[in-house]
């Protein structure tokens, strides 16, 4: 675990400034500032409706923001921007529902964007896909279709698909929530390995124990704002807002 680096000289890899977002009359993000440095592992927690998923999705442009600026490794996105291609090549995303392409094999799922977005040649995409699948422990499933894989395996392919694009940061949106309980561990194991290798990760998760063990920093969102953030141990043991205290109590009571 790397300590939280607060020194002003380090330029953050991901910088969110005054992010605002409304769905119709409902304002779900009310001016969020957040910075993530290279190699950090950050978990966003909070109740459903607190805005954590929306914030995560806005980082690679799946939600258009209404105000503020998102900066990832020098690529800027503001509400006026439409072309997100450069940003998205630096930001990978893994979804709750896996979203593998069902008409393609595991290997083809991984190779597709390398071919059409990165314009790599056939041999290079093949090699990259093989190594990405091997990394998530599924090198032998290259030719399997998603329907032939378990939920846990599908999610690992989805992780490999994102990793193969060599993103600077990987976003994980409740990636174990759709899994049967016995399949959660294999996916979290992969994420843990990525964290140890120094991958920058931002996770929205309900796995509190995992967040506590693996993350450098916890961000607690409440009512469209960051209510509290800091090292997991501090937040879990000495929450400074009543909302967080109640949230932790609620989660641990489950």
């Amino acid at each position, binding site marked *: 675990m790397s300590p939280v680096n607060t020194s002003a000289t380090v330029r953050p890899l991901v910088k969110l400034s005054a992010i605002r977002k409304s769905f119709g009359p409902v304002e779900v993000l009310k001016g969020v500032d957040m910075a993530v440095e290279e190699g950090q592992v950050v978990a966003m927690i909070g109740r459903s409706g607190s805005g954590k998923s929306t914030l995560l999705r806005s980082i690679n442009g*799946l939600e258009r923001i209404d105000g503020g600026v998102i900066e990832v490794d020098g690529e800027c996105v503001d509400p006026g921007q439409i072309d*997100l*291609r450069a940003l998205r090549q630096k930001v990978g995303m893994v979804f709750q*529902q896996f979203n593998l392409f069902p008409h393609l094999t595991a290997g083809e799922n991984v190779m597709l964007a390398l071919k059409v977005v990165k314009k790599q040649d056939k041999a290079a995409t093949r090699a990259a896909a093989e190594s990405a699948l091997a990394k998530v422990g599924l090198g032998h499933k290259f030719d399997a279709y998603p329907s032939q894989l378990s939920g846990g395996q599908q999610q690992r392919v989805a992780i490999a698909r*994102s990793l193969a694009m060599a993103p600077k940061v990987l976003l994980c949106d409740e990636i174990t929530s759709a899994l049967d309980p016995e399949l959660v561990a294999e996916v979290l194991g992969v994420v843990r390995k990525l964290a140890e290798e120094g991958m920058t990760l931002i996770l929205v998760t309900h796995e509190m124990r995992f967040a506590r063990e693996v993350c450098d920093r916890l961000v607690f969102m409440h009512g469209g704002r960051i209510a509290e953030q800091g090292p997991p141990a501090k937040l879990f043991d000495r929450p400074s807002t009543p909302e967080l205290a109640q949230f932790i109590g609620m989660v641990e009571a489950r």
Partner: protein
Amino acid sequence: MLNFTLWDILSNLLLAARWTVLLSLIAFVSGGVAGLLLLVARVSPVPPLRIAAKLFIEVFQGTPLLMQLFIVFFALPLIGIETSAWTSAAVALTLFTAAYLAEIWRGCVEAVPKGQWEASASLAMTFPEQMRHVILPQALRIAVPPTVGFSVQVVKGTAVTSIIGFVEVTKAGTMITNATFQPFLVYGLVGLIYFALCYPLSLSAKALERKLNVAR
């Protein structure tokens, strides 16, 4: 009055049916191509394109094919294009087919889960890349049965072109009726010829749909 045997009547109808088949093929193929372009515009992220495609579809699905034929027939000369029953029929049926196919296919595109759009977007794919590699291959699979089913409407639609003077099987039926005074027999045969053309298409659409449902 000449005497017409049943074979005389049938053979003349069958000869005319060639034009029904040819016009159907032309309308279906060119309408399919135009419909694909229309579909892409209809689901594209560019609002003016989307609205224009939507309008086109609404107009062609909200007006009679007969009126579309008349308008094409009388409008093409106004813009300096020499026209015949053939070209008018082909152009009008193509536009008609394009509108219906685009709408059928839009339903298929919308049946592809939203997560597929999001996953491909998060991999930095552009709209054309998403359509080409992720969305259309999935939509196409479920689009086959209703597309085959719609081909029946195209074949039947060609009958209306007889009204602007295109000599296909319905027009031939009218001409033969005028010569033989046997409308019951002639229109009965005309109906059977259409049935022979359309029923296999209907059956295969049904079979394809059953196969798709089993596969899922």
